[in-house]
Every structure is written in C-alpha cells, then in structure tokens.
C-alpha cells in the first residue's frame, strides 16, 4: 500500500512551483520544472519502489506548458492523482487537456489585465503626486498580492479537485474577472491620458488641429480597433478625444 502525501511534500511542491520555469526549454517547456516540483511528493509516494519512482519522474518530465502562475492547478491535481494511485494514462491525459486552458486563462488574466492594471495604477498614483519609489513599491505589493494569491488559489483548487478541476475553474469564471479588470484598466488609462493632455503642457493651448487629429484617431480606433479589443480601445480613444476637445475649447 502506498503512503499518503505528507504535508511537507505538498508544501515543498508549492514552494518549488515558483521555479517551474527555471529550466524552460523549447523541447519540453515547463516539463522539467514540473517534475522538479513533484519530486519530494513522488519520493514520499514511491521512495521504496525504484522502478515506479523512475516511471513517475519520467511521466512528469514530459512536455508540459501552462501559464506559470496557473501551472499550480495542474501540479496540485497531479499530486492528488498520484497519491490516489491513478492510472498513469489518466494523469497523462489530464495534463494534455489542462495545459491549453491554463495557458490562455493565465495569459488573459495576468499578462493582459493584472500586470498592465497594477502598472497603470502605480502611474496614476505617481501622477497624483506620490513619490516615485512609493509608486514603485505600491506596484510591487499590489502586483504580487495578486500573483501569489493566484498561485496559492490555483494549487489548492487543483489539490482538492484532481482531474475534475475543470468544473471548479468554470465556476470561478476567470474569464469574466479578466474582462472586468480590462474594463477598469481601460477607464484608468483613458482618464490618465485625458488628464495629462488637458493639463499644463498638454493640449490646452494647442487649438483646433489637435482636436481634428484626435477625432481622426477615434475614427481609426472604431475601424481598426475591433480587430483587437474593441470596448477598451473605444473607451481609451473616446476619453482622449473628449478631453482634448474640452482642452481645445476651454
């Protein structure tokens, strides 16, 4: 009979998951990082059976890819499956199915929403008069609270749900959070750029030419913007246009 996962093996897998990209390569991508993170747990499960241990390490060395912050979902679930003595084929199929969504959900949530959001927030605070190093500190703290929180949540959800984690992720609706965040960031960017343009040294004294240019930019945004990210593009460009117009008239 196989031993259960120890608390320290689980904690160690989570801590090691911060290094999951440490040996990133084009061939297996996160594969070796994934196996590295699983190693203490695999030792506690298969330590007394060298052949089973070799096979387990090999199956986790295989190609794997995901967003690094959400890779913990797969890692937690793989730990649960290994501890339950699941069929290796099931583990393999789980990792194949989960990598795509963990990549796209993470890219949207972190690279396209959270990172620019935390950056714009810090820029806005700097513009409002916060000293530069304070703004940088706010960025680092805000960004990493989300970053580490997401890693921790993902790892726990994976560990508790195993291969059924899809349902739980569906309920969490990360995509909707991503859209909300992007909307908020777009509004912030629009206000910030608008305020800069309307302020001293901006467009306040520049006259009609700038208003015409801004209107052209708005039209271009309407026509080209739909290829990318329409609501956000329109919000940004509309805010700039309105404030530039106000600046020019005022």
């Amino acid at each position: 009979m196989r031993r259960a996962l120890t608390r320290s093996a689980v904690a160690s897998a989570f801590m090691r998951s911060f290094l999951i990209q440490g040996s990133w390569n084009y061939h297996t991508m996160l594969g070796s990082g994934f196996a590295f993170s699983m190693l203490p747990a695999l030792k506690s499960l298969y330590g007394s059976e060298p052949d089973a241990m070799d096979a387990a390490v090999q199956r986790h060395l295989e190609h794997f890819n995901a967003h690094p912050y959400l890779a913990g979902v797969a890692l937690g679930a793989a730990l649960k499956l290994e501890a339950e003595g699941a069929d290796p084929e099931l583990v393999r199929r789980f990792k194949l199915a989960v990598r795509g969504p963990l990549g796209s959900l993470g890219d949207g949530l972190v690279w396209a929403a959270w990172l620019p959001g935390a950056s714009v927030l810090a820029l806005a605070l700097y513009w409002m008069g916060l000293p530069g190093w304070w703004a940088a500190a706010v960025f680092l703290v805000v960004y990493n609270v989300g970053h580490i929180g997401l890693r921790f949540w993902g790892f726990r959800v994976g560990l508790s749900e195993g291969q059924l984690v899809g349902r739980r992720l569906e309920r969490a609706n990360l995509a909707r959070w991503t859209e909300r965040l992007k909307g908020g960031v777009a509004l912030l960017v629009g206000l910030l750029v608008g305020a800069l343009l309307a302020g001293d040294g901006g467009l306040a004294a520049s006259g009609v030419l700038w208003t015409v240019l801004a209107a052209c930019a708005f039209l271009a945004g309407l026509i080209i913007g739909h290829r990318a990210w329409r609501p956000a593009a329109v919000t940004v460009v509309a805010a700039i246009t309105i404030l530039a117009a106000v600046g020019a008239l005022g």
Partner: protein
Amino acid sequence: MSIVLYRVDERLIHGQVVIGWGHQLRPDRYIVVDDELSASEWEQDLYRLGSGDVDVLFSTADEARDRLPEWQASKLRSILLTRETSTMRRLAEGRLMDGEHVNLGGLRHGPGRAEVLTYLHLNDDDVRDLEAMAAAGVDVTARDLPDAHKVSLETLSKSRWKSSS
C-alpha cells in the same frame, strides 16, 4: 459552406486556434471530433475552458460522419478539430469532404513521428491518412497560423522522406 476550418491539431482548443484563427474566422462553435473525448466529461470540461464564449460540441467520428452534411449546410460557422490524422481521414472517406481544405496545425507526440515542420511531426500512418484524404478530394496543407506560410502536402511528403532516411 459553413465549416470554416478543418484542422488537425493535437492540442485542440488552445491559443493558436482561439486567438490566431478564431479572431479571423469568427466561429459560432468548435466541433471536436474524437471518440475518446466524447465519452469523457471531465476532459470536455477542461477543453471548454479554453474556448471563451464560443460553444464547443464533442462528437464521435461515426456521429460526425452522419452530421457532416448538416454542419456543412448550417448557418452556424464551425471550426472542426481532430487530434489525429486518422479521425480526419475517417470523415473524408466516401468523398464527404470533397473540395474542402484540411489544415494541419500541430502534431508533436506519437510513435515513429519525425519532424517535418517545427510544429508538425508525422509517421508513416499519418502520411497514408493524408494521402487518402487527398485522394478523396481534400486539399491538405500545413499552416499553424493564418498569417504563416502555407505548405503543400507534396512538400510535406518530400521533407518527411528526407528526415526519415
């Protein structure tokens, strides 16, 4: 014609398909044809997570053969995906896909597969499947993303012959 893309890609619904092809083709649904997956609910849940707001339909190869004419005539724009060349070949049998294009988008893993393009590895069975599709009236080409260079089946067969000899 309302299947806007037939694609063989072992990753099925993932970034290249959803962002790369999806943004350009604007599908109303993805149809995943795979016998194993259509019997596995938890795997379907995972693949669905990657599709954004677009519906995903899972089907066995047999069911897909029955429904292919309906999908081709439908007003809904579909992207049809398989993990294996053999599944796509089964759909094409009996000239069900006469005049259609099949896009090879990503195969890496599998016994005896040799690299033909960075994203495409083929074994002898794959090549036979592709040739059978071509014989059934299908235009088979490889292209990972819509803006990428399109590679014909002849070129693929030649470079596979070189890499395996």
